[in-house]
């Protein structure tokens, strides 16, 4: 494999029902960042679907220099084989140095199949991506064997208890699936345009094409906690489903404020699974995360530790949540939370009238 033939950072621009998924924009943000440290700074989005040409400008505004559009009626609804064929063919044709895919339900199905087809490594569910040296420290006497400008892919394993950094020094592309909600989108540049490349490797259904008998969309009115700016998150310590009302009152004071919860709360049936933060729930990174009556099991922390400001209220001074909180308050949440809501409301009103 002529590794030097492989150039630029590519992302799989996931779309569903002809709407760009948030993960695609997050990947573009990260791709821009990585490309700055590479010789070839081109960021390419691979857009796969049916009649998806209208999405190109959005990808350009979020950082794509070039968009490879693979448009075919066979690609209307996601299916493993035609999508794997599309992405693997694009990789073989355009030879990216780095290929990023979201670790979504679609990406975690597509990524492994494509990596096996193009014969390269794939690192799952990454939370940190950097450009650096491999080995990290050169072996004495073998300095010339150290490879530079490699993609270093960091991921949690073992339910978040260990963390490993992986490289793919001898195969291209260097391929990773990236956990949603972790990478930052860039500020969109209104009116930005990308070079458009139309590409179609041909889609002839074979035995590997599964049949979609039915698609059932589950109507969800629940706002996505991954989009929240402020999360007021409750744990078992909140005591009852009724007590979540006081968390809702607090969240309502903030623009983009929402309520979320720990796994224990979902297991008790107090809140729906959609609201769960953590290893088996969602990864969130709001500006402010209130952890209220949450002990802070490692699986929970894995889903919220990237929040900008973490404020924890817990009556147990030994709760592990205090290890990750920026501001920890040991006390009775039932007394503190309603008071806090009242006080913030008063402050906001005072400011509005000032």
């Amino acid at each position, binding site marked *: 494999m002529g590794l030097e033939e492989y150039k630029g950072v590519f992302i799989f621009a996931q779309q569903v029902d002809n709407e760009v998924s948030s993960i695609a924009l997050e990947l573009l943000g990260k791709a821009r960042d990585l490309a700055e440290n590479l010789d070839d700074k081109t960021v390419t989005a691979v857009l796969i679907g049916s009649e998806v040409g209208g999405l190109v400008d959005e990808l350009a505004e979020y950082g794509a220099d070039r968009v490879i559009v693979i448009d075919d009626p066979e690609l209307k609804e996601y299916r493993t084989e035609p999508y794997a064929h599309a992405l693997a063919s694009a990789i073989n044709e355009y030879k990216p140095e780095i290929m990023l895919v979201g670790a979504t339900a679609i990406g975690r199905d597509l990524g492994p199949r494509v990596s096996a087809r193009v014969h390269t490594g794939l690192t799952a569910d990454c939370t940190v991506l950097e450009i650096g040296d491999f080995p990290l420290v050169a072996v004495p006497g073998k300095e010339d064997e150290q490879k530079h400008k490699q993609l270093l892919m960091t991921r949690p394993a073992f339910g978040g208890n*260990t963390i490993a950094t992986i490289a793919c020094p001898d195969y291209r592309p260097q391929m990773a699936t990236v956990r949603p909600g972790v990478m930052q989108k860039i500020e969109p540049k209104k009116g930005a345009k990308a070079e458009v490349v139309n590409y179609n490797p041909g889609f002839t259904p074979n035995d590997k094409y599964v049949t979609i008998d039915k698609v059932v969309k589950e109507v969800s009115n629940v706002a996505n906690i991954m989009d929240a700016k402020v999360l007021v998150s409750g744990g078992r310590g909140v005591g009852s489903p009724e007590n979540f009302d006081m968390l809702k009152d607090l969240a309502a004071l903030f623009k983009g404020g929402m309520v979320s919860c720990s796994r224990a709360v979902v297991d008790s049936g107090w809140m729906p699974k959609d609201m769960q933060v953590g290893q088996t729930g969602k990864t969130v990174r709001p500006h402010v995360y209130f952890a209220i009556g949450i002990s802070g099991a490692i699986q929970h922390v894995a889903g919220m530790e990237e929040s900008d400001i973490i404020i924890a209220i817990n009556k147990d001074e030994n709760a592990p949540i205090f290890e*990750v909180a920026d501001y920890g308050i040991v006390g009775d949440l039932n007394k503190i939370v309603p008071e806090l809501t009242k006080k913030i409301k008063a402050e906001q009103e005072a400011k509005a009238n000032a």
Partner: protein
Amino acid sequence: MKIVVCVKQVPDTKGGVKFKPDGTLDRAAMLAIMNPDDKAGLEAALRIKDEDPENTTVTVVTMGLPKADEVLREALAMGADEGLLITDRVLGGADTWATSSTIAGALKNMEYDLIITGRQAIDGDTAQVGPQISEHLDIPVISYAEELKVDRAAKTVTVKRQFDDRYHILTAKMPCLVTALSELNEPRYMTPGGIFDAFKKEVTVWGRDKLDVADENIGKAGSPTVIAKASDKVAKGKGEVVTPDSPAEAVNYIVGKLTEKHVI
């Protein structure tokens, strides 16, 4: 109908994860169990067998150290017909690419209509080996199965598969591979008779020479990915923790910080 179920022996994390002084996982100090998603896959296979026991065989395959024989015995005690252990020193240190090539190398020398794997193992959490096996075998894959039905006459499998805001009902032609979620079912217990029989049964052991796979695609040397660094997770730096005398004092403290950070 021939069903092959791929299982992995993993350390149990329920009792907490234990580390050696050097920060690496102390696997010996932790109980070894059958990976939960794989066990759900095995249960799904056994339920298909229950529909027509005379005409169905369930073979369980694992790759690992000789000790992984234990999960095969457990599978036999639950009702599987045969067990195959793939073990060889040259297979060690494999990443998902090399692991999937190796297991596919064994499957190429077996007969199967349906292959079931777990979605992901609780030690690696990658969810990659199942789909990668299907690619090496050039057969269809349906990952993350929540429900599974087989039509023996039509030679098809129908699966309910969840995506973020919707689910698909998908039908694939056999032979195919399905990855199972632990939500799929509640696995049965081993029966006393089953346990007794399981230890009388022969487990087949295959070394490298029984596998239809090229040398460059196995073990550490056949693995495109390499670990640059592995560590115990480092917690974020601890902030400040206060114990206010009254709720009012607690509230003033929080509002002070939120104001300082321009949140309010």
